[in-house]
């Protein structure tokens, strides 16, 4: 067994530098690497290129890095639940590259799986396809999209073991599995870190080979963006 555990979030983020490209898992505020984000804030690294489906809210998630002006460019499918984001974008301080959500996921998966590029129908005939190669297969048009290239990938899982194996809970899975192994170094934070052998090999969502560092996060706030309930009666 190849041990991937590091002692804490400081060790987990060693090597993160200004101007790097980072992948960050999560959908909205669900399944985001909360502890890695806090440490990025503490480290004050700046000029970051962030690949993440969303950009957090003003005071949580990637919003914390935005408040701190650490992000140079966001590559996302949906942003702007966030006033500071809007201000920086409209003022030109922040670059934004909007990418269809399925394309975003597959650009991660392509990087993980060693595919340099893929053809997808999403965005054909729209401004997303501008400047990109298009091609017909079986009478339908597709756009050629390239795999991402990133330095670090920060993901959050529910449980993980010393070998880096990960298990996710509910829809907190989202982009996290696709981002594992999609960057040079993948850092996984988990709610519960268990010894190797504690997880059933059949039930692992992401094998440890895709993860370079794993640690148990100190604290998870798990904020809910849209609390919706129905009355009991």
């Amino acid at each position, binding site marked *: 067994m190849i041990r991937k555990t590091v002692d804490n979030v400081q060790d987990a983020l060693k090597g993160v530098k200004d101007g790097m490209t980072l992948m960050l898992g999560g959908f909205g505020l669900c399944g985001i690497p909360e502890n890695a984000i806090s440490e990025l804030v503490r480290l004050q690294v700046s000029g970051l290129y962030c690949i993440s489906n969303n950009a957090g809210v003003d005071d949580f998630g990637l919003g914390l890095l935005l408040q701190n002006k650490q992000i140079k460019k966001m590559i996302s499918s949906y942003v702007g639940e966030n006033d500071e984001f809007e201000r920086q974008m409209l003022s030109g301080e922040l670059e934004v590259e909007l990418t269809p959500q399925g394309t975003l996921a*597959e650009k991660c998966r392509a990087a993980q799986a060693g595919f340099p590029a893929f053809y*997808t*129908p999403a965005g054909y005939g*729209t401004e997303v396809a501008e400047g990109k190669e298009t091609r017909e297969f079986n009478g339908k048009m597709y756009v050629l999209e390239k795999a991402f290239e990133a330095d670090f990938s920060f993901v959050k899982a529910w449980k993980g073991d010393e070998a880096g194996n990960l298990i996710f809970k509910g829809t907190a899975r989202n982009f996290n599995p696709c981002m594992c192994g999609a960057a040079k170094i993948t850092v996984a934070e988990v709610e519960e870190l268990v010894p190797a052998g504690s997880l059933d090999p059949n039930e692992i*969502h992401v094998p440890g080979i895709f993860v370079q560092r794993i640690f148990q996060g100190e604290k998870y706030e798990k904020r809910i963006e849209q609390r919706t309930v*129905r*009355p009991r009666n």
Partner: protein
Amino acid sequence: MLDKNGIAKRIAKEVKDGYYVNLGIGIPTLVANYVRNDISVEFQSENGVLGMGPFPFEGQEDADIINAGKQTITTLPGASFFDSATSFAMIRGRHVDLTILGAMEVAENGDIANWKIPGKMVKGMGGAMDLVASAENIIVAMMHTNRAGKSKLLKKCTLPLTGVGCVKKIVTNLAVLEVTNEGFKLLERAPGVTVEVIKRATEGRLIVDREVPEMNI
């Protein structure tokens, strides 16, 4: 003339037994409330869940179980969770049978614009471009005209496109229309709405080739 719930109610009749359905935000979300109880339908949300149920009871919300609108949800027996790449495999691979989404504009050739207004803050397309480029069966739910009273059913979209030639059916507060090679074919009128009213509210080519029945909702 229908209100938003009326539109949702009419669209719910398009949902057939055995359908996997992806509902967009807004009016489409309301459709789930009106689907018949005697048919089997599963709702997919692109953030990674199939078999969505109703909202949770107060106190039972789980931050780890949300829909694409970031709302807390529950799941029904037979549900499954999966990652984003798998979710879009379902969508792109045409395993989802029906996609219902809102629009700012639809053109008579089936083009749709629903993600960007130049000069305004752009939030992004989310999964909409994947959905419209892939689904075989797309229904648009929207008001027939915008707040300024201008038609949203056009000869050609004026806003940046979300997808080309993909919309099959449109349900508005005034009518049900099918996108055909010749233009918008009027299938049904909303209760109390005349063909004349629909004609005036439709900028794109409108085809009225028979007696147009009133909706039955």
